[in-house]
């Protein structure tokens, strides 16, 4: 199908970003209006409604937006780094470190404060180890990175299985639930901190978006066009992993967001990363806000793990996408 896309401009990006931001805002309002409790943002508020909305529901909705943004951004930049549209934020092994850290913290009983912290530390330790292994003669080898990440994830999976088999039933239950992927209702401080850290890590990634475009020509081709390929790779890996670590330490493993959102946006808006990355951030936030809304409301007062919703939507969607991709592209 011939593409009649014109090259993106700053104004074009502005228009699209504004549209996506409006959709996100609408989703947030919708999500803040619905929940297991009966409180609504409009009308009279009594004290319990105030507590429900401002202390429980709104922070959680906003955290869903932040996590959706983090995961989609990480997925987008990892897909650029690995030049592979099947990459998701977890493929490079950092999520394994976060999970293992979180499980260990949970079992050591460091308390609810300690779990995200130890989880994050575990993620960063994994990041450093994997980066060391994948750096050969000063160059970050992307294929080695991918393999190392996959092996590390498998290793962590086995380690967690081992732990699960020796702990008590009570602890086993806690571990399984932790790994399932649930968005908690955070304190405002936790929310602000996560958002701030995420923003700090995302800004350098936004600055590299044109370089990502050039890197689609291959590492040599990009170098010949003046891109500092090693620096782009290293920064992308580190910052993308930080985003993933923030997300996993807050909520466990929520799948599909980082894989599906970049894909949808690439189809709709084109592969130019200068448009895709900001759009993925806004679109991912919207996606997770709505998925979490569904998770909270469908079987209220019980909750489905939000990872179930994202998989139920993401799975079939992704298969449909692969089928279309297979038929429309011959040899690349």
């Amino acid at each position, binding site marked *: 199908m011939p593409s009649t896309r014109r090259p993106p401009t700053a104004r074009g990006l502005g228009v699209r970003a504004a549209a996506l931001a409006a959709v996100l805002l609408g989703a947030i309002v919708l999500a803040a209006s619905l929940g297991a409790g009966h409180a609504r943002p409009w009308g009279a508020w009594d004290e319990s409604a105030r507590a429900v909305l401002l202390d429980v529901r709104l922070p959680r909705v906003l955290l869903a937006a932040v996590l959706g943004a983090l995961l989609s951004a990480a997925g987008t930049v990892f897909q650029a780094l690995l030049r592979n549209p099947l990459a998701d934020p977890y493929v490079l092994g950092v999520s394994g470190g976060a999970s293992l850290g979180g499980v260990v913290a949970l*079992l050591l009983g460091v308390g609810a*404060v300690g779990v995200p912290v130890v989880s994050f530390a575990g993620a960063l330790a994994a990041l450093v180890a994997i980066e060391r292994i994948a750096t050969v003669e000063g160059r970050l080898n992307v294929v080695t990175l991918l393999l190392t990440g996959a092996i590390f994830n498998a290793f962590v999976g086995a380690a967690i299985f081992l732990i699960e088999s020796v702990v008590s039933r*009570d602890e086993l239950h806690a571990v399984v*639930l932790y790994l399932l992927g649930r968005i908690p209702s955070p304190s405002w401080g936790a929310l602000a901190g996560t958002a701030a850290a995420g923003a700090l890590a995302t800004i350098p990634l936004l600055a590299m978006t044109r370089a990502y475009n050039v890197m689609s020509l291959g590492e040599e081709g990009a170098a010949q066009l003046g891109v500092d390929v090693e620096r782009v790779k290293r920064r992308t890996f580190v910052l993308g992993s930080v985003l993933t670590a923030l997300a996993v330490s807050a909520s466990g493993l929520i799948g599909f967001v980082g894989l599906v959102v970049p894909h949808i946006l690439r189809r709709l808006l084109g592969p130019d990363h200068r448009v895709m990355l900001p759009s993925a951030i806004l679109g991912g936030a919207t996606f997770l806000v709505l998925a979490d809304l569904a998770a909270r409301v469908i079987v209220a*007062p019980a*909750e489905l793990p939000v990872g179930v919703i994202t998989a139920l939507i993401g799975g079939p969607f992704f298969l449909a996408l692969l089928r279309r991709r297979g038929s429309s592209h011959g040899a690349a």
Partner: protein
Amino acid sequence: MHAAAWLAGCAVVVACHAPTPPDRSAQGSPPQRIVVIAPAAAEMLDALGAADRIVGVGDFVDRPEFLAGLPRLGAYDAPNLERILELRADLVVTSDAVASAPAARRLQALGVEVLALETDTFEGTLRALETLGARLGLADRAAARAASVRAAVEDVGRRAAGLARRRVLCVVGRDPLFVAGPGSHLDVLIAAAGGINVARDVGAPYARMSVETALERMPEVIVEASDHRPAAFRGRAPGLWAAWEFLPAVHEGRVYWIDPDRVVVPGMRMGETAELLARMIHPEAFGEAGLEELGAPGTAGAEHP
């Protein structure tokens, strides 16, 4: 660059998860609107005569039956914060399981008092009862009820004192095999009922045991409390253990299938449970009353397992 990123990242994450402001809930006055998540606690509140203060229950609270109409609030790891706040609960009673901690902390930050009770062991349960009673301003009543449960169990122990100890295996889960081990209330009750728990060295109140080990120990009585299905068989039958004829429990016909809800959750009826176990272990001294109807009251027995 990495060390800096690591430290900075950890610092940020620590900062944003910093200890929350102190519990804002009002201390002192006895709570009037209670949410019960731990199943054992519901029974306790009823025993203390405070069941009318319960405004909401967790998903697994089945007894007492009159709580059935109350709002359901989710499982102990994820109680529904919105509904709890809406109910204006001033106390949430939950278990001290690892998985409950994050939710408990969140509730406290929101100004709701949380009592996390250890209700896995015999002593723990009785202490929990006393803690709950103290908090509700019913300390005397709680002490009395705890004492009566303790007395009932001790009475069983006295009557079983001179009898030859029999080897008992108490199963609480299958695939893999989970048994009641040291520290569980069942372990205490088995001892009081004149039995030796063959799983006394598994290292945890509820732990896995391999089937080979279970067979090696040659139990003389098997208490099967693993089948949660409502229409499952209850009563005396070899069931899945029939394949191993050499086990004393099998060829002497002392494999009992019981509704787990009756024995696995420690609570106010531990005295009756001790008595029931004593009948299983020493029918010659305690009689056999009630051993053919081991289901929950009102359920029909089903086909043999």
